[in-house]
């Protein structure tokens, strides 16, 4: 057992994905025309190309996600061992969450969770 069967599944999945990717290039007709290859704009002509830039709000969400996700990852070992750590583990967990919640409330009051 162990981790080897998982690598087997991953390999098979990648092979399947590549197989379909190659398959699509051979099947189907190919009759390109400039209109067909233009970006979809609900039937009107595109006036300017889309800028590949986006609101900073998304970046903020991403950063918050990293903070909370790392918190969860560092939280799992404590959750697993809680049976044996008992009250010590509980207090440690509560202190950890308290600090986290102070940050959470700060971010909330700063308006990071309000989307207009």
């Amino acid at each position: 057992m162990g981790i080897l069967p998982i690598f087997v599944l991953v390999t098979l999945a990648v092979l399947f994905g590549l197989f379909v990717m190659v398959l699509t290039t051979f099947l189907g007709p190919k009759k390109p025309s400039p209109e067909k290859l233009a970006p979809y704009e609900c039937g009107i002509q595109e006036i300017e190309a889309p800028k590949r830039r986006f609101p900073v709000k998304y970046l903020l969400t991403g950063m918050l996600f990293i903070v909370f996700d790392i918190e969860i990852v560092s939280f799992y070992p404590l959750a697993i061992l809680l049976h044996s750590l008992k009250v010590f583990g509980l207090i440690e967990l509560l202190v950890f969450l308290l600090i986290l919640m102070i940050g959470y409330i700060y971010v909330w009051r700063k308006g990071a969770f309000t989307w207009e």
Partner: protein
Amino acid sequence: MLDFLNNAIVAAVIKSAIVIFALLTAFAYMTLIERRVVAKMQGRLGPNRVGPFGIFQPVADAVKMAFKEQIIPTQSKVAIYVLAPVISVVVALCAFAVVPIGNSWIGDKPSIWDPIIGDINVGILWILGVSSLAVYGIVLGGWASGNRYSLLGSLRSAAQMVSYETSLGLALSGTLMWAGTLSMVGIVKAQLLYGSTGQGIWFIAAQPLGFVIYMIAGVAEVNRAPFDLPEAEQELTAGYLTEYSGLRWSLYQMAEYINMITVSAIASTLFFGGWSFFGLERIPGVSILIFLVKVAFFLFLFIWLRATLPRIRYDRLMRLGWQLLLPLAVLNVVITATVVALGWPWWINGLAGLAIVAGVLLLVRSRTREIQSGISTREGTIPMPASVRLARFEPVGDGQLIAPKKQDIKV
């Protein structure tokens, strides 16, 4: 002659092939079942022309998709555009590697032919890690399409998925406290009536709050209705799917449905005892059937939700994730940790969870709709006819409620 069947790699290859094949078939038939069920709920017939009850519809769809013209738009970044759907589907398939599909064939003796691909001791971490890669497929695809709808759809999707992943992870940690292990097989064994680790309850009994949070976050994770903002047709044509056609489009659909199956499988494993059903799982083979029935129930739930609920607005979606689900998940963790660490019985945890779920439902109801018969303004209450149900006024401008003047309201 059949000695090669005792080889671990041969077993892994065959089992993996079976799982991938089963997932793809399940995807194909989920599309049909979804269309039929939604049609029934809306008083239509749904696809019933191709074969009896339309059972060959998925085959027809697949053939049609394969022979569609593939368009690579001029503004796209070709390599990423072509690779992104593949990333999506590979990640979706990989997440299933640690899900225990059934009990060991003979007693408690593990063998290489057990119906699970890899029982690693960090199973949950593998699923969380791999499923958070799913966002790459969508964001890269939307970004590489060179279309503003695609870009907006993929950004929305990314923000939504990362927002709900935090709540999802926290909701799972309550169950992990009860189980005391990260291995998926270990979690199922912790819910058995017998055995050295069996606690005799399904963790839904101890974790109703965690389950509710997990299900909401799970639906949002796989971008399904009512959280299907990334592909909101009315606003974004088809979101990140706009520029995709043919088999590449199918790959995205495939990824979405397989993710649904994975979310259902995790829900039944962590909260509903996986392949166990009050001792019935001891009969060889029955455990797989039990597991499939549980997963099918959750898949039906997904379809039911889609047919029932309207799409949620984007700012409310983010607010729900960050301002409601996340604090609730933390509360659930605190309660569960207290109960587990002090060695209290499971029903205290369950009752507390149920009380919080009921309280939040009441709170949300009282805040979303006023059931009074009039609008209260500073000058007094304006009566309204009984048929009018007022939505709550949302704060406009500097936060003051703006109520209409008396003479503007026609009764």
